[in-house]
């Protein structure tokens, strides 16, 4: 391109800009301002339902450009004006794929930035809030939000929620409100149990379709369930143990009497409903037993029967390996004795009881044992927790000497810095 042509085109551009600037000052058109306000109620879906909503709603708070108001008398010259106009949307994220989400995210980020200096409560001491799930949030914004993206919003909310309640700005409270679930499940506080004038504590437990009510009083270890003794109502010893497991695990079987009513479901379900009922009633008597009950060692016999199906499903045990005498070792052969010894010592030293018991009773080879760990994680709950908390950490391996190549790379990085 020649130099003369460039100067000519520049000049033309400048003149056109001058014309535009005059038109933009026209008071008939509202100037769009950039805003961080979250605009949830509107959306830009092309579906008919959303469109109808849009039509019915007054579109005052839109992220699109405001409507142009044409005066009657000046309608003649509108064509000329329109030619000069460039429509600017209210929100810059109008052109992004997920404008509402982006707006919300930017607004929350700005809040975090704005109140970053406010004091916060220590982690875990903020009021418990159930945030909307990603599915619920999608319904609000009507945009295909991925859960990873929503998680970034949740992180911001979490940070804002940790601002000290005494200094929580109203603006933040209002912003957080939008992301809370309609009903906060953490507001439901269980009523503390009471011991009545006869010394009874009541507990209710449910399992599958069985429900049990147990009254626990101080006594000598007598148990009456539906007016029957433990051996009358449960033929299997395993079920009897399940029913009074809370007392057995805390070594209080001879200190309390249990009187219980149980109905619905099958035998095992009833026994396990009683487990919970008795445990709850016991906790009324001795609330400090709660951690003990949480980590109550699971009985080997109980394991063998109740987890057998799970383990089979997981591939730890092949079906048909259970014999009358107990489970047999897998056909692949047993673990070599020294290795077994070390593992056993590690797990005796304070691993979760589930693993230890299974390890002993199934005598699993290492491959199955690893699968078992996965299973445990899948099961979640108390065993996984207990394992995580008390697991003996393996000794950290000494770092290997850096190779000459690695040394060279490090040196280069230092030089670059």
């Amino acid at each position, binding site marked *: 391109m020649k130099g003369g042509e460039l100067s000519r085109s520049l000049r033309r551009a400048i003149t056109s800009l001058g014309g535009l600037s005059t038109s933009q000052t026209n008071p008939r058109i509202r100037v769009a301002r950039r805003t961080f306000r979250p605009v949830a109620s509107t959306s830009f879906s092309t579906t008919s339902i959303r469109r109808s909503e849009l039509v019915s709603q007054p579109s005052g708070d839109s992220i699109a450009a405001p409507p142009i108001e044409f005066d009657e008398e000046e309608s003649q010259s509108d064509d000329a004006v329109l030619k000069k106009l460039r429509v600017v949307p209210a929100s810059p994220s109008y052109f992004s794929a997920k404008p509402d989400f982006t707006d919300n995210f930017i607004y929350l980020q700005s809040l975090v930035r704005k109140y970053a200096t406010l004091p916060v409560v220590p982690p875990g001491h903020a009021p418990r809030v159930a945030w909307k799930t990603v599915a619920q949030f999608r319904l609000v914004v009507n945009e295909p939000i991925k859960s990873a993206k929503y998680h970034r919003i949740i992180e911001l909310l979490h940070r804002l929620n940790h601002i000290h309640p005494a200094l929580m700005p109203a603006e933040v409270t209002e912003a957080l409100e939008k992301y809370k679930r309609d009903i906060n499940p953490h507001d439901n506080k269980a009523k503390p149990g009471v011991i009545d004038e006869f010394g009874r504590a009541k507990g209710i437990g449910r399992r599958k379709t069985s429900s049990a009510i147990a009254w626990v009083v101080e006594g*000598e*270890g*007598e*148990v009456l369930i539906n007016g029957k*003794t*433990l*051996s*009358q109502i449960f033929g299997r*010893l395993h079920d*009897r*143990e399940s029913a*009074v497991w809370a*007392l*057995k695990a805390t*070594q209080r*079987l*001879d200190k309390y009497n249990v009187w219980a009513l149980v109905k619905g479901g099958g035998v095992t379900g009833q026994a396990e409903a009683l487990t919970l009922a008795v445990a709850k009633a016991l906790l009324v008597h001795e609330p400090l037993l709660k951690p003990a009950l949480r980590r109550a060692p699971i009985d*080997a*016999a109980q394991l*063998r029967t109740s987890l057998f199906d799970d383990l089979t499903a997981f591939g730890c045990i092949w079906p048909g390996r259970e014999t009358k005498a*107990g489970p047999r070792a897998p056909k692949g052969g047993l673990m070599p004795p020294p290795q077994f010894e070390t593992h056993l010592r590690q797990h005796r030293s304070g691993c979760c009881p589930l693993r230890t018991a299974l390890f002993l009773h199934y005598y699993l080879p290492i491959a199955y044992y690893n699968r078992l760990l996965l299973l445990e994680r899948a099961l979640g709950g108390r065993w996984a927790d207990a394992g995580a908390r008390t697991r003996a950490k393996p000794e950290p391996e000494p770092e290997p000497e850096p190779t000459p190549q690695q040394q060279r790379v490090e040196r280069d990085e230092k030089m670059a810095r």
Partner: protein
Amino acid sequence: MSSSLCVRRLSLAPSDVSAHTSMATRSLLAYSCNASFSTSSAQLAQNLQKKSKAALPPQRGTKNSVTLKRKTPARDVGKRPAPGERKALRKRIVLSNINAFEVPGLRDLHTTNMHADSVKGRVMGLPGTVVDSLRAVEAFKTTQGWNLFRRPAILMRRESAQIAEFIQEVEAAQGKKTIRRIIIGDRASGKSTLVLQALTMAFLKEWVVINLPDAKEIIIGHTEYAPMPGSNRTQYTQNVYTANLLSQIAKANTAVLSKLQLTTKPDLPITVPPNATLVKLAELGAATPEYSWPIFRALWDELTQPNRPPIIFAIDGLGHIMRDSAYLSTNFKPIHAHDLTIVRHFIDHLSGAAALPNGGIVLAATTGSNNPSSPALDFSIQVAEARAKGMNSLPTWNPYKSADQRSLDSLKNVEMLRLNGLSKEEARTIMEYYAASGMLRRTVDNNFVSDQWTLSGGGNIGELERGTVKLRI
């Protein structure tokens, strides 16, 4: 119908019909093609079918049968058990476990220490002679855990002491007293074992022991029966069963009965030598089943003469004889169990209709695991327990239920002996015995005892044994 088919049908018709063509044409359809009187036709037809199938080309996707060798059917080479071998195995009583330790300091039960306070709540061994006698009267059951320990031993629990007291009372009354009791309790609570304990003490005291080991065997129709001639309401004797009972009585009570001689002249169809001992009489009855019932009656008459020892008469599984038996009368009506002579005899003594002139004990144990439905017995137990508690309003029979009046009447005045669970001290004693026998490899401490006591439903001894000895994990 095509003409060729018509002709074929015609050819199959009998000759006399085909002779009259007009008739034949009218009744053509009445003849079927495969009308044949030979029984071989079905087999032939099958063979034909098979052949035609084989002639077809092999099916797509199936294995060619030509290449497959037909397996010869596996010949059964297993050895069959001899007649009665299985039953013998099923009924086998094992009273010793050589892998169990001998318990140090285990004393035997004797006439001297039977009533002593020192044996109360202790485990006592059974003397060898008594064990033989108990085996003879089938007092040991296969369901009991005798095969777990070195030698038979019993726990002298509270109810055992009560039985010992009964024996003492009878002896003290000089033959004026008959104690009648029905032992009730949960399943595996030790009812049959309590009967065994009573028999043990009676053997030690040299009483005459007559035991009907299982009432079920009497009424299920497995032994032959015959109406007794001259009985007003027809009674039925069970000759083989009675002969077997007599042999058991002779074997178990040899020591006592061999000292006793006939004092009366029994009117029997066979000659009995005068001054024969009662063992001889019983053995005679065992040897001649056709006269076993009259001989049993004669033996009973002898035993109820003055200056004879007291009798203990026991039965296990009372519920079975409180209903109709499996036998049928000539009218094809079920025979009530009380119409069987041996049952009748027992019921008369249990209900108190007949007395034991020399005193004794009549014991009946109910059964928990093999419990037949006997509403009369259930109701009688309720009434007796309410009466024992001194309740004002006794339970009443549901008028919409058909009542077995004979059973109800027979149980009207019998007291119950309820077997409760063991106390914790007794549980501890028996568990220490298990541990000393090496069958329970745990430290028997308070915690373990109370755990097991609760898990066994409040000290049910059968459940306790199951939980501690049998179900070791």
